């Protein structure tokens, strides 16, 4: 009976869900379709073609920027995952320690801090330290931002893990470190993997912080794309964007398959 009462609302629900998803996906789909456009004019359809992809793979400056971005993203995501996981452990398991409020404040603030402020303040630090700006300064800057995201993701998973499992391992003779590695780490591994991926894509996306912290001759892909986009729409940019979207989609599908597989294994192991 209650379902009938809410039936009128559910039509409204279907419409808003459909419109919402269309709004979220149509611009991206259009962008990808136009990246295969043979025409030089972005807006005139000239048939399917891969010419803009070839153009990208022959553009040495763009390729160099893409390589720089990938190296920064891989390095900073790995550092951020290490630091973020440690931070999550400290937040979940260290009930009280001196400076905990400051610690959690420092971890949450960058999540909403405007990027222009984070970028400017890090640049000033690097200038004061006399650090040469380039790969490492951007990597450190991205690590600072993305470790906060990793910490939040791992924290939510870790707080759901039952501590008695680890206690049991310790009662059976494991030291705390071994107990953590053997029991808890496998349980929070999906969150750590998700955190790494989020850190990787955030680093790959970032324009503002990278612009502040990089030096001459070390442009990342978003910096190159931004300077091209300011001059107008170019089919080659569509191709690069489509490649990035494809890579992200592939990564997400892989990740969700991995999580499904690992949780399936966990389900089988449980009755034992």
């Amino acid at each position, binding site marked *: 009976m*209650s379902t009938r009462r809410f039936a009128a609302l559910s039509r409204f629900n279907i419409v*808003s*869900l459909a419109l919402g998803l269309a709004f979220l996906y149509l611009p991206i789909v259009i962008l990808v379709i136009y990246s295969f456009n043979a025409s030089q004019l972005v807006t005139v359809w000239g048939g399917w073609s891969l010419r803009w992809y070839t153009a990208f793979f022959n553009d040495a400056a763009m390729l160099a920027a893409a390589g720089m971005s990938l190296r920064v993203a891989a390095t900073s995501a790995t550092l951020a995952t290490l630091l973020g996981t440690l931070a999550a452990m400290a937040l979940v*398991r260290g009930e009280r*320690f001196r400076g905990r409020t400051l610690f959690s404040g420092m971890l949450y603030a*960058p999540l909403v801090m405007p990027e222009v402020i984070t970028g400017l303040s890090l640049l000033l630090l690097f200038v004061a330290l006399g650090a040469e700006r380039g790969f490492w300064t951007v990597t450190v800057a991205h690590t600072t931002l993305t470790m906060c995201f990793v910490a939040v993701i791992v924290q939510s998973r870790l707080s759901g893990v039952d501590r008695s499992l680890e206690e049991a391992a310790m009662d059976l003779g494991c030291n705390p470190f071994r107990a*953590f590695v053997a029991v808890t780490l496998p349980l929070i591994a999906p969150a750590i993997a998700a955190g790494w991926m989020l850190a990787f894509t955030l680093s790959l996306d970032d324009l503002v912080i990278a612009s502040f912290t990089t030096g001459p001759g070390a442009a990342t892909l978003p910096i190159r794309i931004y300077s091209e986009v300011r001059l107008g729409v170019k089919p080659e940019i569509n191709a690069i964007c489509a490649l990035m979207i494809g890579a*992200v989609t592939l990564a997400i599908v892989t990740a969700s398959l991995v999580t499904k597989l690992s949780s399936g294994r966990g389900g089988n192991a449980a009755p034992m």
Partner: protein
Amino acid sequence: MDARSNFTRPARLAAIAPYAWMVLFFLVPFGFVLKLSLSQTTIAQPPYLPILDLGAGWQALADAASMFSLDNFRLLLSDSLYLSAGLRSLTVAAAATAMLLLVGYPIAYAMSRLPHRWQPFAMMLVIVPFWTSFLIRVYAWINILQHDGLLNQILLTLHVVSAPVVWLSTDTAMYIGMVYSYLPFMILPLFATLSKLDDALLEAAADLGSSPLQSFWLVTFPLSLPGIGAGVLLCFIPLVGEFVIPDLLAGSDALMIGQILWLEFFTNRDWPVAAATAVLLLLILLVPLLIYDRFQRRQMVRP
């Protein structure tokens, strides 16, 4: 007590590295921003004075410290360019956040009404665009909104308009870009609270004679206020300092404070004024940031 210390001690050890990292790369840099905002511009490398040299002795430090002044802030507060940029940032962010709420709420609500086994899938559909680049998403709209872009072509074909409409470099384009880019940040916290809502409450309201609309206003909406609060703050705070969206989609006649900071830094190379702008932006955002922090802590206390 003993069992607990088995967890507390490793946790304290775990805190050391990330704690040191955040102090060095998040907290200390703010000190530099503050110091620079009190400095003077000069044509040199780095382009500001004074430069504190800890090795030069107390006298030199004291001399350098006497060069600090509030001139940059005086400039910011007296020049109408900066004031109107600050005001525009706040109004644009507030308007965009209101639009996000209007667009995001029905979507989050519909998601929460889906059968339970569909909900994770719907949530993933909302998150996926968030994983694709911010810049790409803004760029996608430039494709659509430009002079001979898809939107104008459709409108012309349908004879809705007789000549191409100027979309790019307008506030309309900027708001579309903002709503588009921040929508997941609004939907996810709303969905998180709405999906936890107990259906029995709605059934009880219906049994007591409420129409669906009445039970929405009297039950669902008040109970979703925490989600609304989180979503509004998650969108509003970064929107105030937003740079990419207004820079690429809005016109250049009215600037937001993030754009001012960027211009002062990269175009005028006036680092002290850029730093003073950052300090002011931070002060403006401190109020919502503190609210957000309180909110986070309340979330953590409640399991």
